[in-house]
């Protein structure tokens, strides 16, 4: 119950200080590009993470990645298939890849889901217009934790 309330608050007020316990500037990467510390201190909800993964208006991870146990038609294949991903990477590495995958894979086409500055011609979401103010991250801190929790269940 508490988790879904927090996530809802994050969705309603994404970008405000109260919704995100940390900002991108606070994130500490290890030398492999992983992020050891939870972004919120609140355990992620794997069910919510699966929803974020599959939903176009949320993480839309399925645009590029397949997870065969998910009920999401036409998964993309620009990124690697993620069955068994938890056998290959721990939560620290998964969190780092979600926060900013370029810290793990230099030059990757995967977007950084928690980064909010340093972009060329950033826009106001998908309007094609200039942003009104500071950018919100693509996913909130708790949504990142939820996706990490979901991916951590993918063992073979």
């Amino acid at each position: 119950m508490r988790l879904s309330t927090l996530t809802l608050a994050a969705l309603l007020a994404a970008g405000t200080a109260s919704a995100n316990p940390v900002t991108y500037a606070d994130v500490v990467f290890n030398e492999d590009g992983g992020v050891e510390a939870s972004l919120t201190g609140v355990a992620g909800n794997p069910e919510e993470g699966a929803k974020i993964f599959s939903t176009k208006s949320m993480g839309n991870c399925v645009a590029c990645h397949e997870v065969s146990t998910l009920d999401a038609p036409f998964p993309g294949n620009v990124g690697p298939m993620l069955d068994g991903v938890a056998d290959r990477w721990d939560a620290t590495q998964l969190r780092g890849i979600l926060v900013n995958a370029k810290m793990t894979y230099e030059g990757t086409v995967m977007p950084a889901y928690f980064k909010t500055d340093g972009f060329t011609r950033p826009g106001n979401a998908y309007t094609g217009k200039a942003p009104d103010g500071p950018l919100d991250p693509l996913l909130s801190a708790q949504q990142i934790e939820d996706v990490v929790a979901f991916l951590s269940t993918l063992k073979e």
Partner: protein
Amino acid sequence: MKFKPMSAIAVLALSVPTLGMADADDDSLVINGEIEIVTKAPAPAHLEGALDEIMSGWHFRDDATQAMEMDDFDNPGMLFVENAMGVWETVDGSEGKSCASCHGDVAESMKGVKAVYPKWNEAAGEVRNLQMQFNDCRTNRMGAEAWGYDAGPAKDMEALIASVSRGMPVNVAIDGPAKAMWEKGKEMFYTRTGQLDLSCASCHEQNYGNMIRADHLSQGQINAFPVYRLKDTKLTTPQGRFKGCVRDTRAETYKPGSEDFLALELYVASRGNGLSVEGPSVRN
């Protein structure tokens, strides 16, 4: 099934930027049973190290969509060509002229034009695409009002001018006075924009043949433009498409008709040097 081997390789080769798997089909395109379209060709020299083979987006569409382009009666884009045929013959402006007054039969006088545009105009001292050239004629020779960029008649006329060059090889000049603008367009092609931080190359050079959800990524060639998009039920020009693509990187996009997009249009057109002019084409 066909995604599995790709994905397995992707897992093994994550750090390799170019997987180079072009999952295009091997069909061949002949329009009206007579116009042979070159839809695959060796890449032009300036793409050495980037692409070996260039391919029309036609190869990345399903059979039903492909078939619509094989007969002008099935190609909804040809309805707009017909509109433009009417405009071609219609007197407009203070000088009492139509396009035909000076240029006669469009199929004769405009044959080959689309293949070399955008192109440096020596008298004007600038690179021009077709729509810019239309407006030069309209304002300076016809005494008519310029068309807004991508306004209906401008897009229709672009489709007509393309249609009479179908089957001819794209051959856009990238040297001489056009070079500076070409270089600018090349830089834009490889610049990652927006919060998603994607360049044209991220999808259309590194990942053509792969799927973003149900969307089959092509090489982003514009030899077949203008394109009739089934989901829009209207014609789209290269710059109109660029606007949507840049927007979809969560970027502040550029305006169709801007110098930025003219540079990108010149550069992207040159990536198709060797393919046939194919527009108006049909895509989903």
